[in-house]
């Protein structure tokens, strides 16, 4: 079982960067002839940040990391590892983490690697980065970000309204925070959130670049994201409440002790249903869905940076964080976080 408690590491800082460019739900709905009110009522999304074509997730993460390193007054040469969690890397190879090592001025003695995870990616990344510190490294940078808008069809109503782009940087170092992690996987759900073409299983051909009409009139190509929304909802209602219960049990935490449950920001309808299912009132389930949409793997960090920044800069918060989705994959943690460096969210042109 992937259940573990760490005691020798801590989060030192979290920073996030979003593209400056905004697109509203009303604009997209108008283009698709959809009902804006209904979509906003369901998803809770009013607008999202969209990266321009030349901007990658690594650019957003590099901006966040550069600012965080300065705020922490860390010597880049004191950083022993960089973990980059993304599903939109710069290239198939090399690992984008290697490029980020040079870009951020990290030493060549630094271990750097990419992790391909989506909705559960931030908590997965925290688990990996914390493990590295617990294993003896001094300082680790965890960069988590996606430009999901690059991999969805704007003619596919099941996904066209949902995703926003973002990048985050989280700094971890030796400390004595107690953090409990629970992780899980069910590859039986792989078909429900998938990009079929473009890698080894189905190499890209000119024919596969063409968009075609699929279920429900949605138009996309095999190199763009397919999402089965009803399966996502059923999976989430099935797996996330037990994940939360396991976290409470293994950390010895009572619901009322938790300051905030920061969940993957899939959409507001799903967040509201999960809050109800896990027995936490909505005021302790922060949401950045309205202005950022579903920011994929970085959504937990974006929500902490956007909504908990002032509190967590000044005091310790008991946070539960949970990510769940593509895979199926899920991961949660409960621990004390703060005071940490948490600079304001930056917008990148």
């Amino acid at each position, binding site marked *: 079982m992937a259940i573990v408690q760490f005691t020798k590491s801590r989060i030192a800082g979290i920073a996030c960067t979003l593209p400056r460019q905004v697109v509203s739900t009303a604009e997209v709905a108008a283009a698709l002839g959809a009902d804006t009110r209904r979509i906003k009522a369901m998803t809770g999304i009013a607008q999202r940040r969209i990266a321009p074509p030349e901007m990658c997730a690594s650019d957003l993460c590099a901006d966040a990391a550069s600012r965080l390193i300065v705020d922490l007054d860390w010597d880049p040469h004191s950083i022993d590892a960089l973990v980059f969690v993304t599903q939109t890397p710069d290239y198939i190879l090399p690992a984008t983490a290697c490029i980020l090592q040079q870009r951020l001025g990290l030493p060549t003695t630094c271990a750097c690697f990419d992790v391909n995870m989506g909705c559960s990616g931030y908590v997965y990344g925290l688990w990996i980065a914390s493990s590295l510190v617990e294993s003896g490294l001094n300082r680790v940078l965890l960069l988590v970000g996606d430009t999901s808008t690059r991999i969805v069809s704007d003619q596919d109503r099941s996904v066209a309204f949902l995703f926003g782009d973002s990048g985050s940087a989280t700094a971890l170092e030796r400390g004595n925070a107690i953090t409990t992690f629970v992780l899980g996987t069910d590859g039986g759900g792989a078909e429900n959130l998938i990009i079929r073409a473009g890698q080894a299983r189905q190499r890209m051909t000119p024919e596969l670049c063409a968009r075609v009409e699929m279920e429900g009139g949605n138009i996309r190509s095999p190199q763009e994201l397919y999402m089965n929304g009803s*399966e996502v909802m059923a999976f989430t209602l099935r797996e996330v409440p037990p994940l939360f219960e396991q976290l409470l049990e293994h950390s010895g935490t009572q619901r009322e002790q938790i300051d905030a449950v920061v969940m993957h920001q899939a959409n507001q309808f799903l967040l509201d249903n999960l809050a109800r299912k896990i027995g936490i009132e909505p005021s302790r389930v922060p949401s950045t869905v309205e202005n950022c949409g579903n920011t994929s793997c970085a959504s937990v960090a974006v929500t902490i940076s956007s909504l908990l920044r002032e509190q967590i800069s000044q005091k310790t918060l008991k946070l539960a964080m949970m990510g769940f989705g593509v895979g199926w994959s899920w991961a949660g943690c409960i621990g004390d976080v703060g005071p940490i460096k948490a600079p304001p969210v930056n917008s990148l042109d």
Partner: protein
Amino acid sequence: MITQNQLHHDLEEMLELDADTIKGNENLDEIAWDSMTVVMFIAMADQKYSVAVSPAKLADAKTVSDLHTLISNPA
């Protein structure tokens, strides 16, 4: 046991329809059934009836009556 009337009332509320609009013999495409309402129905069944609806079985439902059968025999 969830009654047909209860289901009709809950569907009317979910779909923002006037009361007593749904009689039970409607085809789902007559009540603006789409991918969004499918997701809403799964959440509603979970919340109101404590039933985990199978998305695959739900995809096969053609009528309001089929929905009642589904939530009455979810396994």
